[in-house]
């Protein structure tokens, strides 16, 4: 089966109002080309799920496309909290549902397994239980231990960026896989961009690097430099000049609008 589509065709795969989960972590291997295409296509009212959000989540928030955000972290590593995330939180521009890393992982695992919740210890004693109604304390039927039930999340679409993929949908990641396999397993469909599309024989030569099995993959997009200014080991490290440009524009909503216009919303800029 050939699953290759062009970047512009991604807009046919996602609808306004969908729940999307995004792979990578912080400033590492974020699917920026896919996220920019979502913005360019005018898709809005998204529910976004991100264990470790970075410029992906921050850009979507800054472009006003997020209705609801499930997250444990949205930051630029040494650069602190995402500036648009920070503004959106302080001005209450979306619905924010905060968990911990393992709480988000558990919600996706429950979604992947098709059960309504996962039991965890994470969150006990913390204020997360006060602000997140998707977390409910309960007593274990085995021995009376207090635990937290984490409500399942079943995303419509997973957006991932990998080093290489073949047309059938095998995706190889040479750096940290983060939670990309789980994102693909939990979502109803996965759209995967790759630095390059290779033939299946090339996948076979280093099969231990396959992070995404083709069964989870719906569409594959070739997008060299698709992680934007985030890093994509071993292809490139984070681009500090472009990162600084982003942070400079993100200082205010007005200047960020200009950035979105230039880098994401500009019609047909990156269409092949």
């Amino acid at each position, binding site marked *: 089966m050939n699953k290759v589509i062009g970047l512009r065709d991604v807009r046919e795969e996602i609808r306004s109002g969908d729940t999307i989960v995004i792979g990578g972590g912080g400033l590492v291997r974020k699917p920026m080309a896919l996220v920019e295409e979502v913005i360019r296509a005018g898709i809005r009212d998204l529910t976004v799920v991100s264990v470790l959000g970075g410029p992906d989540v921050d850009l979507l928030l800054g472009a006003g496309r997020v209705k609801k955000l499930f997250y444990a972290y949205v930051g630029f590593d040494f650069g602190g909290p995402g500036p648009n995330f920070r503004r959106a939180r302080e001005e209450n521009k979306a619905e924010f549902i905060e968990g911990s*890393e393992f709480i988000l992982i558990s919600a996706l695992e429950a979604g992947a397994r098709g059960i309504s919740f996962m039991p965890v*210890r994470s969150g006990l004693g*913390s204020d997360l239980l006060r602000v997140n109604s998707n977390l409910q304390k309960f007593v274990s039927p085995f021995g009376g231990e207090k635990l937290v039930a984490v409500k399942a999340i079943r995303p419509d679409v997973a957006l991932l960026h990998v080093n290489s993929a073949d047309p059938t949908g095998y995706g190889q990641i040479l750096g940290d896989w983060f939670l990309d396999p789980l994102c693909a397993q939990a979502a109803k469909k996965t759209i995967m961009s790759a630095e390059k599309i290779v033939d299946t024989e090339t996948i076979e030569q280093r099969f231990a690097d396959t992070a995404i099995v083709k069964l989870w993959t719906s569409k594959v997009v070739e997008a060299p430099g698709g992680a934007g200014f985030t890093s994509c080991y071993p292809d490139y490290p984070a681009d500090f000049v472009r990162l600084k440009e982003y942070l400079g524009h993100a200082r205010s909503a007005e200047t960020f609008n200009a950035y979105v216009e230039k880098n994401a919303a500009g019609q047909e800029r990156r269409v092949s």
Partner: protein
Amino acid sequence: MSEERRYSLEDLLISRMARELKGEIVGGAATFCSMAAVKLAQLLHNPDLIDMSGGLHHFDSRAPLTLFHTEFLGKQSAKARVSWGELFLMVFREKFFVWIGPAQIDQNGNANISAIGPWARPKAALVGARGLPDDSVHLSSMNYHVIDHSKRTFVPRVDFVCAVGFGPARESGEVKSGRPGVVISNLGVFDFDEQSGRMRLQSLNAGVTLDQVKENTGFDLLLPSTVPQTDAPTQTEIALIRDRIDPLGLRFLDRMPRPEAAAFLDQLAAREREMFSSRL
């Protein structure tokens, strides 16, 4: 200047933090000084320690501190590729130690990295709870590096509990693991009295007075009858930090003022490109 003061505050913090990393465990860190501390402990005191700073694809690798190339330098010395699922099992089985950089910590050891002010409409939104609600109910202890000791960071009660300190949740037995351990700041080293659950001064950093600590702390600390000074770093430690662990000087970024940090980062990006581009 006397002999024992020929070191930076960063050297002192790194040396002191490194001593807490004991046994065959994974060391994690959220500040530059504590990242250096994991590397120092591994080199000097604890060869069994696993440094995870190279990423889970280069697990248990050795490399100096870098900002833009941490994923790149561990390839020759990595021992395994580890999944995030296994990483959390390491947390759950108490095989993990982490130095956290909280925005607020209180007298009972609750810590906050989520929001200043009301959570629903924060005065300042921070990064989010991240792994703190996981760590603080699973690890054997929670340890903190507070970069800027002030009444804004050492508060009577945190605005949002990400990591659970001493109090009702522990008294009721609901939370058993992850009690507050050591807190280190630019002014001193602190721990907790298990009986009262209150923060206690352990030692003062060189050149810091007790009054200075009191003036910059938003609550009353428990005080020992005599207050010792934090151990000075050794010449061996200072040399290892400077030459092998952090030749690029990332440790100074923790408390570098913004304009200076911006210039430093520009230079660092260029230097790292020069040093490592051949290895990419």
